[in-house]
């Protein structure tokens, strides 16, 4: 059967905006995927939705498709993204409006059922089960041009299109595991093509920005990782290893569709900017699904004091002694940066930073009460007192934890463009 070319244009919410267009214009693709959800992103979207219930999805994805929808349809490239976040239905509706405004009529499907707050996670702002690939596959088989999801595993964005294309059964564990590995290589975008890479010295510096990755999948689950011709960066055994080593924990990677045996992955050079992935074995997945739970942990704030020149330990001790008694936050953490060089010939070289971070359940003790206390010392503390930035009012923070639910408690659902819904077991 013909191979499937799957590209990626986003590794996180905030990744290079122009990547969607670059990937559509830069070479042939069957499917373009984008990952917009990290653990922390779910919290950000949760806070968005508290303010406005119609939000809760990745808004940059809307603007990217506003620019690229016509192009994707013209090229026959399906777009699959988890940009739906906490509100895939809302995102699908918004994309429908954009299409209407442009006189286009794409088939837009969405996948949900991942939101499991109703199963009882007291105090949780968000609780989302990591769904697998079969919902995306059903949406594509139903004719969708665009599929948006909530919390599916990052690799499912690649596995789903492969299942739809090759028709793999849920028990085709080796094939699924092969696609999971390809999915993990792609999910962080340019981290597969030379970004965040220890061997950066070997990258060509003359080319443009790092190209986003592409996987050419075969019906046995093997793949070749590459990138569009003429883009910057590098695809080598080392850049692909980097991404695998970063994404996995342990030798048996547990996912909703398959347990992937990472100790069976074989990487091989397949020519310039081409790395072949073969040999991947898989086995039955666990009976429970992992859940990403975010709770609103409290509020935090940080102030950074610049300490310069002589007697740095004493300067730090004095400002601490001045500030500490005024702080009412539940948690106060001080840390002093490294000692500067002696007899430094620049002011920056003679300086270090003293950081004070405060946390509390409520906003007041980390807000003005904290920042004013620090600022009021400006003329009343150690010589050379200065701050890196005026202290702000503090920010809320989340606490992430993993939980597990039985898969029978989750209703993994595809909402097709024609209004039909389909439950995926």
């Amino acid at each position, binding site marked *: 059967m013909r191979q499937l070319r799957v590209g990626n244009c986003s590794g996180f919410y905030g990744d290079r905006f122009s990547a969607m267009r670059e990937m559509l214009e830069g070479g042939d693709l069957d499917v373009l995927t984008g990952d917009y959800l990290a*653990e*922390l992103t779910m*919290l950000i979207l949760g806070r968005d939705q508290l303010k406005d219930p119609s939000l809760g999805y990745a808004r940059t994805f809307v603007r990217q498709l506003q620019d690229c929808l016509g192009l994707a349809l013209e090229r026959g490239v399906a777009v699959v993204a988890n940009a739906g976040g906490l509100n895939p239905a809302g995102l699908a509706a918004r994309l429908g409006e954009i299409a209407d405004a442009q006189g286009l009529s794409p088939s837009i499907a969405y996948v949900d059922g991942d939101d499991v707050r109703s199963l009882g996670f007291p105090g949780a702002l968000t609780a989302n089960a990591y769904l697998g690939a079969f919902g995306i596959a059903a949406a594509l088989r139903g004719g969708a041009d665009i599929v948006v999801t909530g919390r599916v595993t990052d690799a499912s964005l690649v596995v789903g299109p492969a299942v739809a294309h090759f028709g793999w059964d849920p028990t085709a564990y080796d094939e699924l595991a092969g696609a999971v590995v390809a999915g993990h290589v792609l999910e962080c975008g340019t*981290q597969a093509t030379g970004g*965040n*890479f*220890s*061997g950066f010295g070997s990258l060509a510096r003359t080319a443009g920005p790092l190209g986003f990755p592409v996987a050419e999948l075969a019906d046995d689950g093997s793949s070749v990782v590459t990138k569009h011709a003429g883009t910057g960066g590098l695809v*080598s*055994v*080392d850049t692909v*290893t*980097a*991404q*695998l*080593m*970063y994404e*996995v*924990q*342990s*030798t048996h990677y547990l996912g909703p569709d398959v347990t992937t045996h*990472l*100790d*069976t*992955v*074989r*990487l091989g050079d397949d020519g310039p900017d081409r790395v072949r992935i073969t040999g991947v074995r898989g086995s039955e997945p666990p009976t429970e699904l992992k859940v990403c739970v975010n709770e609103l*942990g409290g509020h*935090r704030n940080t102030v950074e004091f610049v300490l310069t020149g002589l007697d740095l330990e004493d300067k730090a001790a004095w400002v601490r002694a001045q500030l500490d008694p005024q702080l009412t936050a539940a*948690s106060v*953490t001080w*840390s002093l940066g490294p000692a500067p060089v002696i007899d430094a010939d620049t002011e920056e070289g003679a300086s270090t930073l003293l*950081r004070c*971070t405060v*946390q509390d359940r409520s906003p007041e003790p980390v807000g003005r009460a904290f920042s004013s206390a620090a600022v009021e010392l400006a003329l009343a503390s150690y010589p050379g007192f200065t701050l890196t930035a005026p202290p702000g009012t503090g920010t809320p*923070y*989340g*606490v*992430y*934890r*993993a939980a597990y639910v039985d898969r029978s408690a989750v209703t993994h659902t595809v909402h097709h463009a024609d209004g039909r819904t389909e439950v995926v077991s």
Partner: protein
Amino acid sequence: MKAPLGTFVHARSGDKGGDANLGLWVAHDGSAAYDDRVAWLLALVTPDFVHALLPETALLEVEVFALPNLGGVNVVIHGLLGQGVAASTRFDPQAKGLGEWARSRHVEIPEALW
């Protein structure tokens, strides 16, 4: 002789909730000593080694998973990032630089591997 671990070892690190994840593997730099370097790295990296290499992990549970097929190891450092990236007060709360710190640490590298 003593030299940085990163002399021929690559790394990438990041966060998984409150845990830090660190991959270390031997660079494919064309060296004839590749297989010997992999055998050395796999034997070298134990939880005790990680505790000594990165002293701020000394009191934390460390797991090491050998991936000889990828020429390296996956290291999980439990609890280094406190309650997760948004809550952590650690310098580098997502452990993005942890791998490069590890590579800069000096270790005894046998002469035969150079």
